[in-house]
């Protein structure tokens, strides 16, 4: 695989030539401009969170506050009970990812290795499911979750109401089936000769050999579920149970703008920090 060390579209010699330097400066200018645009809402909410609320509404360009009211951040943290929001988000997204990984690895192992009858039909159904627009099943999904078939339990205000739908990912099953298919047969055959059961081979061969792809898929799923809005908005009606995305939105109606923007900036931090740490592991891992 080509790494940035060798060359990209231009060779290193070209890149260092006068024309190459010009192109470099042009790219650098555009990317810097782009980065400023990308980072602007982060910077904006950070500095607006330090202002007084009258200053936030004042017109004119004053990105930096007259006085740095760090107390706004403390107030947002305490008043919004942000620890609570974050733990809710972690429980919701973490449980969802765990469910997705359990369901998908098991299904993919069966489809890849265990030759279930009707395998091709199942694969076709998974593909069709992948094509179903999520929003088309939203309403019945909600109705079902408020009154589960047979047992007639409502999962409103329950994390199970989030985890169960989150655990279904046709995408993850397809990718993992491909990934298990790519493991050389000989490895499984050797283990079989040693008398290993399917369960043992699942845990000792299939999972360990696919752990980097599982990690990437899990990370992407975590980010998606962490930011999910509509479903937790419908399911979690009690403020104490709401994840960051939903709780901050409902708070906009009650909180002063400066405190609120301070809270928003705090909410942006954990994923940002995670991204900086995980950048190396995720790089190149994102495919379709």
């Amino acid at each position: 695989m080509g790494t940035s060390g060798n060359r990209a579209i231009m060779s290193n010699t070209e890149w260092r030539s006068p024309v190459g330097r010009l192109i470099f400066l042009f790219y650098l200018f555009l990317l810097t401009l782009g980065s400023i645009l990308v980072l602007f809402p982060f910077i904006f909410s950070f500095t607006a969170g330090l202002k007084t609320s009258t200053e936030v509404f004042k017109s004119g360009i004053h990105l930096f506050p007259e006085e740095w009211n760090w107390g706004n951040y403390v107030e947002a943290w305490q008043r919004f009970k942000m620890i609570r929001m974050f733990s809710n988000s972690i429980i919701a997204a973490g449980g969802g990812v765990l469910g997705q990984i359990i369901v998908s690895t098991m299904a993919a192992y069966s489809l890849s290795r265990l030759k279930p009858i009707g395998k091709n039909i199942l694969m076709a159904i998974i593909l069709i499911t992948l094509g179903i627009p999520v929003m088309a099943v939203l309403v019945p999904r909600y109705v079902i979750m408020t009154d589960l078939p047979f047992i007639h339990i409502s999962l409103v205000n329950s994390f199970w109401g989030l985890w169960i739908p989150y655990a279904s990912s046709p995408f993850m099953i397809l990718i993992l089936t491909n990934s298990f298919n790519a493991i050389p047969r000989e490895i499984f055959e050797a283990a079989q000769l040693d008398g290993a059961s399917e369960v043992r081979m699942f845990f000792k061969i299939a999972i360990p050999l696919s752990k980097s792809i599982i990690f990437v898929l899990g990370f992407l799923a975590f980010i998606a579920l962490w930011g999910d809005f509509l479903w937790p908005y419908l399911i979690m009606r009690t403020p104490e149970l709401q994840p960051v995305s939903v709780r901050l939105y409902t708070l906009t109606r009650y909180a002063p703008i400066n405190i609120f923007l301070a809270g928003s900036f705090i909410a942006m931090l954990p994923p940002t920090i995670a991204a900086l740490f995980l950048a190396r592991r995720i790089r190149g891992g994102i495919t379709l």
Partner: protein
Amino acid sequence: MTDNAGFNRIKIKSHRKINWQQQGVAYLFLLPFLAIFTLVNWYPILKTILSSFQEVNLSGFKGWVGFFNYTRMFGNPIFYTAWKNALIFVLLSLVMGTMVPIILAIMINEMRRLSSFFQTIVYLPALIPVAVGLIVWRQIYSPEGGILNSLLQLIGIPPQLWLQNPVLAKPALIIIMTWIGAGGTTLIYLSGLREIPLELYEAAELEGFSVFKRILYITLPSISARIKILVVLQIIFVAQVFTEPFILTGGGPANSTRSPVLEIYDTAFNRWDFGLASAWSVSILVILATFSILYVWWSQRKHAGEV
């Protein structure tokens, strides 16, 4: 020897029969998947289609009504407004959302040592909860002290009511959606750019091809499979836009940002008319079916060739 051969034959024969124990294990592994997918995907899709022919409200099933929900849906001008809005959202997002990530990916890939830095930056907006980003953007667009208007005044553009003007509301939302989505798309293109064999560029360089021609004849064709899939995915995704209009405009001004899913939400959860909401859901299924088929087909073909 002969015994052994006979034994082998029996073994082969028994293989052809269904090994129930193995099938039991196979389906045990499939059980969580079958249970959960039935509950949250297959049963709901069936229920959507059935409910669209029923009167259903908060207290449940009221009776079969034939095509009544559909006549109500087609008879309401909102149906055409919402889908026209969805179409405009899709077209605007394709203009921004296809070009920007490809250009970003090509530039970032060329940047040598700075490449991983910019890569992390462009991906940041995708990581924060959409609702949080939207609320910050609402303040940026705000007519009262919104910094966007103040910045534009610097270059002589008078203040605009970004989210309150029917002409500007859609582009204003698309800018935010591009801000959120471009990073993820860029990373997917980047992983595609890194798979291109470097010999191709070396050969092109020896032949004296300019950088622009290399991009045109090598880079773009190499990532064309990804472009196709991402365009279709984007169409499916943007046609179902909900959170942005829900939080920022509530579908207004003058229904200019009312999307089909927003209408489903209002019909189902504000008016508790599940039958009509289901008819709307079927309209999403039908209208997006072509794109869904293309997406599934192209992405499978790509995986088959790759993995």
